[in-house]
């Protein structure tokens, strides 16, 4: 390490290329603060664990609820959200500086050379540009709110310091992922967030099922990571470097548009993205990941980590723009995932499972966005989704928390996450109810909430891309567009169903339990309120030009601001696209421009929400313990299209059988058999030969004589 720590912290690194106007403000500190939080909380967690072990060893009664202790509760409560707040503030300062600087080139801050072999070198370098800035704002901002929420949600948990240690570590790796200036550094963050995801899904590891869910997430992600690695190898053999700036600068020269190499690179990258961002066919780990604490689901499995794949594609936009086949694959997988996950969400009863499938579905939309070359639209939806989905998960967390307390009060073992046991929570939890409705209409795509603008832009860009002058597969994109529209309506339906089942109608928790239901404490509803504001106004940062003209009263400030902001990042990709495909279409394949379809889909979503509200409200929902198994097609959806069973049959069981064969037959049988056989043979031969060793002197003398005679005989004759 050449640079001293002080230099990292206070001098902004050794060089700041291209920072003519933009002076980064303590960028290293943004990354290091969560790491510091991890170290401090980790030490507290270790101390707590050692103290607990001591109590158990000496036979004392282990008090699992040590929430009152300053070292295990107060300190983590201050350190965990505290470092996040500081990191967020520093990010805001940087954002403000970049906002005024009109940065054209990314600012790369190099600290030291991480590794250097032959002609290949990777620097520990951070890249500050418009894209990483947006991601940093989301990670630190939403991350901070979720940390605050966790203070209330995890209050009574015995692993409180450990929880915040993991959470801080996650933020550290996530920031490395989005700020790293090269693919290897991004990969470090990529693997690091995977590790933290594993640790936090299996946070309650004494429960076998939850520990297994963590392992599943880890293993499924490995498949995708292989793609990431292979893509990096290809990039290295092509460019000789893995830094972002030289690769994107040289991409158009080194790679042929639509060529096999760039297609392979981008498809392998997308395999990585599909694993991390839970796309078909690697989405199966995300619903299981709901085994973790609910704020973890909000932070990792909704707002930040799972969007890393979208970030990867947007970051590599130049490469993807050069590979139309790969881009079509991205969009196709995205749109299919969006529809597929939405259908499953229709019939789930676990409130977190609904949100999990909804997340998979929305991630599909983001991939549609980046797949049709609308990179800013993809990032836009990533941002609004971070707001409303984090809000939904935190709201679900508040509901589960309340339900859990209610069941705990009567020592009931009913499922606190099952929506069939909820109902009528509106009057007990009005703040949660209101904020979650905001998020619901936002995700459903109803004007003027955030999701309307972001989702509609993606859907519209799909139509516009398919109708471009030289679009590769116009019919295919038209299908994508129609599926995306249909999935949007499904979204509106299942989200309303979730809200109705949870908050409306008669309460089904139980007469005794209902008395214990109450609103979440301020430390929990305050983040909800903050996110509700963001979910409401978040969409206005990127109102498209067409929409602005029709939606009166909006200042120029809101006109596609995010698109403009990201323009330095996406312009190269957009240029490639324009040269090769021509101008985007102004009207959809079946007529109508952007405004028409935006209004239509907004109205349709509203209609679906209203219809769903009445339809589900009229249904007789019974508590989980009295419910019967669904039949027919509903059963298929209820069982998630049997994908897990299918994978189990096709992949897991054969793999297990092969492993068992390798173990029992090849390893234990052949290899061990050979090794042991050599030993047994030597022992057996030795045993037989030792028979000749009688100890009788005359026998020895006789054998020697015979031996001499034989040798003599042989040598003479």
């Amino acid at each position, binding site marked *: 390490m050449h640079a001293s720590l002080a230099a990292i912290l206070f001098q902004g690194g050794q060089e700041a290329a291209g920072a003519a106007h933009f002076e980064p403000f303590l960028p290293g500190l943004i990354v290091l603060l969560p790491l510091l939080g991890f170290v401090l909380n980790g030490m507290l967690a270790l101390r707590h664990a050692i103290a607990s072990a001591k109590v158990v060893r000496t036979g004392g009664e282990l008090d699992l609820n040590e929430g009152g202790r300053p070292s295990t509760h107060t300190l983590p409560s201050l350190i965990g959200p505290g470092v996040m707040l500081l990191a967020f503030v520093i990010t805001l300062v940087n954002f403000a500086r970049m906002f005024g600087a009109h940065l054209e080139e990314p600012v790369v801050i190099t600290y030291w050379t991480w590794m250097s072999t032959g002609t290949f070198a990777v620097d520990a370098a951070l890249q500050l540009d418009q894209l990483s800035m947006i991601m940093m704002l989301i990670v630190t901002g939403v991350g901070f709110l979720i940390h605050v929420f966790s203070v209330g949600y995890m209050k009574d948990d015995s692993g409180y310091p450990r929880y915040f240690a993991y959470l801080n570590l996650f933020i550290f790796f996530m920031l490395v992922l989005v700020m790293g200036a090269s693919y290897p550094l991004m990969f470090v963050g990529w693997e690091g967030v995977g590790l933290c995801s594993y640790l936090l899904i299996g946070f309650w590891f004494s429960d076998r099922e939850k520990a297994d869910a963590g392992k599943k997430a880890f293993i499924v992600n490995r498949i995708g990571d292989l793609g990431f690695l292979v893509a990096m190898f290809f990039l290295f053999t092509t460019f000789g470097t893995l830094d972002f700036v030289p690769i994107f600068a040289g991409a158009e020269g080194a790679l042929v548009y639509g060529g096999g190499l760039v297609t392979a690179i981008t498809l392998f990258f997308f395999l990585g993205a599909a694993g991390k961002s839970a796309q078909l066919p690697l989405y199966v780990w995300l619903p299981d990941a709901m085994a973790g604490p609910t704020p973890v689901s909000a932070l990792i499995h909704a707002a930040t980590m799972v969007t890393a794949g979208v970030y990867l594609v947007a970051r590599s936009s130049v490469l993807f723009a050069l590979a139309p086949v790969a881009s079509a694959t991205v969009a196709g997988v995205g749109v299919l995932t969006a529809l597929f996950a939405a259908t499953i969400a229709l019939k789930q009863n676990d409130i977190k499972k609904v949100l999990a499938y909804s997340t998979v579905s929305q991630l599909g939309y983001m991939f549609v966005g980046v797949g049709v070359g609308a990179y800013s639209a993809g990032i836009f939806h990533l941002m609004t989704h971070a707001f409303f989905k984090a809000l939904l998960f935190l709201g679900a967390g508040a509901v589960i928390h309340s339900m859990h307390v209610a069941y705990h009060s009567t020592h009931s073992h009913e499922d606190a996450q099952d929506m069939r046991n909820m109902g009528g929570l509106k009057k007990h939890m009005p703040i949660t109810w209101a904020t979650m409705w905001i998020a619901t209409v936002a995700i459903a795509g109803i004007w003027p909430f955030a999701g309307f603008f972001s989702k509609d832009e993606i859907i519209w860009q799909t139509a516009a891309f398919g109708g471009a002058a030289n679009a590769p597969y116009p019919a295919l994109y038209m299908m994508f567009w129609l599926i995306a529209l249909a999935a949007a309506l499904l979204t509106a339906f299942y989200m309303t169903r979730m809200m109705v089942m949870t908050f409306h109608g008669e309460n089904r928790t139980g007469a005794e339990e209902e008395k214990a239901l109450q609103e979440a404490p301020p430390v929990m509803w305050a983040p909800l309120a903050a996110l509700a504001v963001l979910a409401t106004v978040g969409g206005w940062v990127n109102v498209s030009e067409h929409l602005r003209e029709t939606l009166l009263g909006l200042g120029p400030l809101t006109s596609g601001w995010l698109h403009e902001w990201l323009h330095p990042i996406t312009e190269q990709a957009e240029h490639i696209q324009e040269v090769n495909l021509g101008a985007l279409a102004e009207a959809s394949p079946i007529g109508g421009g952007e405004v028409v379809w935006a209004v239509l889909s907004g109205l349709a979503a509203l209609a679906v929400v209203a219809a769903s509200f009445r339809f589900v409200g009229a249904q007789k929902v019974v508590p989980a313990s009295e419910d019967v198994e669904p039949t027919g097609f509903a059963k298929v959806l209820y069982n998630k299209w049997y994908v897990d069973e299918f994978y189990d049959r096709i992949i897991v069981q054969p793999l297990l059988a092969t492993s068992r064969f390798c173990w029992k037959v090849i390893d234990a049988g052949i290899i061990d058999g050979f090794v042991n056989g050599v030993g047994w043979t030597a022992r057996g031969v030795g045993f037989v030969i030792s028979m000749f*060793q*009688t*100890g*009788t*002197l*005359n026998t*020895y*003398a006789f054998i020697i*004589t015979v031996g001499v005679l034989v040798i003599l005989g042989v040598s003479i004759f």
Partner: protein
Amino acid sequence: MITDALVLSAFLFVIGTFGVLVRRNAIIMFLCIELQLNAVNLTFVAFSQLHGIDGQIFVFFVMTVAAAEAAVGLAIIISIFRHYETVNVDNFKLLRW
């Protein structure tokens, strides 16, 4: 002349070998080994008629080694006798696994 000497030494050697193989008394076996050695000595001396003085010099070496061997061998036999009060080799089966 030389043939007679060689035949005699061959007879002596075979008698010695036979004695080592069939007798059980350690002293007798020892004497038989000496007989073998001296049979070989006789051969050396006989061949020195044809091949010069080397054979006779070798006999001195053999006698020196035989004397040393006799000293060590007798010492072993004596210590065995003190321990077991017998020199019959059938009673000693220590040289085995």
